[in-house]
């Protein structure tokens, strides 16, 4: 095989990484390179999206695979052993140089590195760790690093990864054990969960040690995340939400990413060929927000689903919940508890905070609320204000339900 140059490899190994949904570069510790050595910084809050692709997704990190060769044969994966894709493999040094030269030009926040499994799990993991080590130690790189760990790799290697990386992750792949068994015969839910538990313990231990000794080494300060493929097995939205809730609870995850299964070249016959259900993926993320920011219990989110356990595609889950539990509304903006204001469709956390602050001084009118929200029409039926009391929530009568989304406009017709 002819040698590929770095650019040709980049094309193959970025293409192979595009199915991974995680892109965040947020939530780590604050670092800078002001001391004059090295390069890079991270903010403790939001990461930065340096560009957006025409698929609407944020480009924040150089997201690539070390290699797309793999000894496994997972059906959903374009890199599986039996696939006919073109293979390539970066040297660790190539990845380091690419990361640095992109970073210096302000294209990226850092590196997201994953890999097909070559040789053995340990060998692959060693290579991944070596990239991170070299960036951190040889080049004093202070940008963001997210490493995907390999199932079955030695815990010591995972530990090394956590010392260099801001975030580490391992994918649970599918929401159901039966789906995983069918689509990823070489992987096992138990082994994946063991690895997650190990990382969770290490993160908690170091956070604890940090309290006692300032010099204690950091371990994945931005925590761990995971990804589930949606639409490749028979799991309902209700199944998926409760699985995610279980994962958040057991393994202290920062994020669960959902990746709508998308047709891949040379797909295995086990897979559906339809376009990925993007709206479904969006509704799952919204359900996730309900749990993470709006105080909904997993069971309550599941209640927003229809009788078959699927989220409605036409309205968001918060509105769906409110319509199902009309009795809980309207909420009085001047007296209602914060937790209930958070349940009002159309009121975000910021608007709720502002309402709570403003009502200390005076009674709020509907016009006041209008200045704090995007769509008064959406919240109005669910609120009482000093000059407003809605008629009873009749079936859709006073709700401005969104019209079915028009087909997406083409930019260059």
């Amino acid at each position, binding site marked *: 095989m002819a040698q590929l140059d*770095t650019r040709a490899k*980049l*094309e193959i190994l*970025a*293409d192979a990484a*595009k*199915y991974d949904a995680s892109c965040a570069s947020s939530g780590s510790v604050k670092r*800078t*390179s002001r001391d*004059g050595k*090295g*390069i890079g*910084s991270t903010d403790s809050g939001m990461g930065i*999206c*340096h*560009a*957006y*692709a*025409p*698929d*609407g*997704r*944020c480009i924040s990190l150089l*997201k690539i695979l070390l290699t797309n060769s793999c000894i496994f044969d997972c059906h959903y994966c374009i890199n599986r052993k*039996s696939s*006919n894709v073109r293979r390539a493999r970066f040297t660790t040094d190539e990845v380091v140089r690419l990361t640095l030269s992109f970073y*210096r*030009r*302000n*294209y990226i926040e850092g590196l997201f590195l994953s890999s097909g499994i070559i040789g053995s799990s340990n060998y692959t993991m060693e290579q991944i760790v070596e990239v991170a080590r070299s960036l951190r130690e040889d080049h004093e790189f202070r940008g963001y690093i997210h490493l995907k760990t390999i199932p079955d790799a030695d815990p010591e290697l995972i530990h090394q990864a956590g010392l260099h990386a801001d975030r580490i992750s391992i994918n649970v792949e599918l929401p159901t054990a*039966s789906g995983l068994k*069918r*689509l990823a015969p070489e992987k096992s839910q138990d082994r994946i969960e063991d690895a997650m538990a190990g990382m969770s313990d290490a993160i908690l231990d170091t956070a604890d040690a940090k309290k006692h000794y300032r010099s204690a080494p950091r371990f994945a300060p931005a925590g761990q995340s995971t990804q589930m493929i949606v639409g490749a097995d*028979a799991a*309902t939205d209700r*199944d998926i939400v409760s699985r995610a809730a279980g994962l958040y609870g057991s393994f202290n995850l920062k994020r669960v990413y959902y990746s709508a299964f998308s*047709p891949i*070249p*040379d*797909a295995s*016959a*086990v897979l*559906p*060929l*339809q376009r*990925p259900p*993007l709206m479904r993926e969006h509704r799952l993320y919204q359900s996730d927000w309900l749990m993470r920011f709006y105080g909904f219990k997993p069971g309550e989110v599941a209640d927003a689903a229809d*009788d*078959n*356990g699927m989220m409605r595609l036409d309205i968001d889950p918060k509105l769906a919940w409110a319509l199902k539990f009309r009795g809980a509304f309207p909420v009085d903006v001047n007296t209602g508890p914060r937790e209930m204001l958070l349940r009002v469709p159309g009121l975000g956390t910021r608007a709720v905070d*502002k*309402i709570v602050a*403003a009502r*200390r*001084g005076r009674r*709020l009118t509907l016009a006041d609320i209008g*200045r704090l929200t995007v769509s008064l029409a959406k919240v109005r039926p669910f609120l009482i204000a000093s000059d407003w009391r809605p008629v009873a929530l009749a079936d859709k009568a006073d709700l401005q339900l969104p019209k079915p989304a028009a087909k997406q406009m*083409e*930019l*260059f017709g």
Partner: protein
Amino acid sequence: MRVIALDAEDDFDGWREGVRAAVQDHVAPERIVWRVGDQPGELFGSEAPATASAANFTVPRAFVDLARKAILHTDRERFALLHTLLVRPGLLDDAADPLVRRVEGLAREVRRDIHKMRAFVRFREVVEPDGARFVAWFEPDFHIVRANAGFFMDRFAAMRWSILTPEVSIHWDGATLAEGPGATKAEAPDGDPVEAMWQSYYAAIFNPARLKVGMMLKEMPRKYWKNMPETALVPQLIAGAQAREAGMVETARTKAGGNIEAAWAALREESMSCTRCPLHEHATQTVFGEGPVDAAMMFVGEQPGDQEDLAGRPFVGPAGQVFDRALTEAGIDRGTIYVTNAVKHFKFEQRGKRRIHAKPDAGEITACRWWIEQERALLRPKRTVALGATAARSLFGKAVTISRERGRALELPGGGEAWITVHPSYLLRLPDPVARTEEYARFVADLKSAAHT
């Protein structure tokens, strides 16, 4: 009128000094003219020196943060607005107040501009006699450049860099920050070999099966595009997306791979634990489809009946026997076809000891469609025959009138052709023997045309 001179559009300290003096001298906001840099002096108004008073008054931290941002806006009223807000009782408590909203609106726009500058500045490497320098050209909307310098110093401390903008340029030499006059795009370097790499990355990381142009435009408006190397590719990426997606699906179709048998077996096994709808609770087992996976014809019934539920196989009860006989008369070998049901669990009402078949509802049909779609994706039958309204609804995803559509080939959304006829159990239920004979003959005729066209 009091005239207060500020050094620059973003001179927060000057504004603070001026406001402090005005408050102490009880000069109302509308009695002040703010002058920036060397704009010509106002006609009315004496440039009264501000009272140099050391007396302090304190303002909440939140206000200072807000003012520091809002002052970077280009709105000419911002100095006065902030002053008005500052002397108002209650200050910031009332987020719904129009003035607070307006000032917060200014700050929000500024914050966005700051964020976009951090995101969309693109450095190009220039080799100078004393080493490399990274130079960027950027056009901010507001007066944010000085306020944003710290971010780039934190990040690129060991690099030498310059950011050129129309209003001001900033230069970092590795130790100190210097300011220079505004620049033009022509003064910035116009290329960097690494850009070709970056473009390759941008094109490869994009998934053509997920085109969402509106979303991209919302976060990366067109006005930024002209200074970003990767955005030049957008039109061709969008134009090529449909072809690439079609190509992806097409390759998938032509190269089914040799694992259909295994895939089907795994799918069947997975279906055994399906809980997508409540029907699994009372039924004995999932009744999955059966037949050769390379069958050219697929038959879709409604749902398993009492006997199918017990046997775990489709079409073995009374309706199945009618179906078998009709198949033989139509010259179709049951061994060569694939038979399945739209709904894979038995739905019934218990009447004494008997379990009476009940019709699946639209929700159950929709829930169970997942399975039949997988079966169809695997087998890709040339012809699919829907037996009855439930089957037709499942295949087309909407209600279909059998009498109107029967007897001719219809195109299926996912490819292949569909034929619609009655369900064999309908024949069993006809009370009039003459009608039954006629309908049976029509059924056989339908099967024949489906098989031989």
